[in-house]
């Protein structure tokens, strides 16, 4: 089971990462790739860029913990998470999750789960840069609700928010 977590300033190559998960093995039947992209509008106002701040050390640890959790919950054959930080312009990629499995449901569910957790638990913060200044994006309740879907009964009791 190949699992890779990377935080980086540089762009990533989603197709290459997907190819690496398949390479040299014939048990992969499904590959799901999620790419999160910087939109040109935020709250219906055009933006110039996003700047992603993160908590080095903790961000890697949080993502790795959730990657391990995904591997425990679904029969994955490969998993790659890449999260960029720094300044990102509209149209550029922010985050990549690739999951490989023998069957599609595991690949879909694990990618969906990881994205919900990245949105709500990984210590990253998005600052919006506009012509007239900067502001911080606010967390959405919808994202918390999405992450709640994955809580197992025991985890729900101990949940920290």
């Amino acid at each position: 089971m190949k699992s890779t977590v990377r935080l980086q300033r540089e762009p990533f190559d989603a197709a290459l990462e997907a190819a690496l998960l398949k390479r040299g093995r014939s048990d992969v039947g499904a590959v799901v790739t999620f790419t999160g992209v910087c939109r040109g509008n935020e709250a219906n106002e055009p933006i110039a860029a996003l700047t992603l701040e993160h908590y080095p050390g903790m961000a890697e640890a949080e993502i790795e913990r959730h990657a391990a959790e995904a591997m425990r919950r679904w029969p994955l054959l490969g998993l790659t998470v890449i999260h960029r930080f720094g300044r990102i312009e509209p149209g550029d990629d922010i985050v990549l999750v690739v999951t490989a499995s023998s069957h599609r449901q595991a690949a879909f569910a694990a990618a969906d789960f990881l994205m919900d957790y990245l949105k709500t638990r990984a210590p990253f913060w998005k600052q919006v840069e506009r012509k007239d200044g900067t502001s911080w994006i606010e967390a959405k309740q919808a994202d918390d609700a999405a992450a709640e879907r994955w809580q197992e009964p025991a985890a729900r009791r101990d949940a920290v928010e």
Partner: protein
Amino acid sequence: MSVKLRYFAWVRERVGKAEEDISLPAGVTTVGGLMDWLAGRGEEYAHAFENRKFIRAAIDRTHVPPETAIKGAAEIAFFPPMTGG
């Protein structure tokens, strides 16, 4: 006891620094207690910690709720709700 504090995003901007080392005052035993104490350190801290609902904390890089005991912590971080992904 000395502990490193780290601030991120608008908590960092309001406090005006990314990190500092403090000597933990007697009587401050929980993360929530530390926030109370920090809020009393001046205008910039009062502003940063004015709405606790929007402050998250981590001890040694693990998310913790405000009632968590500080004892033994090397690094405590304060930041807004996360907006990654």
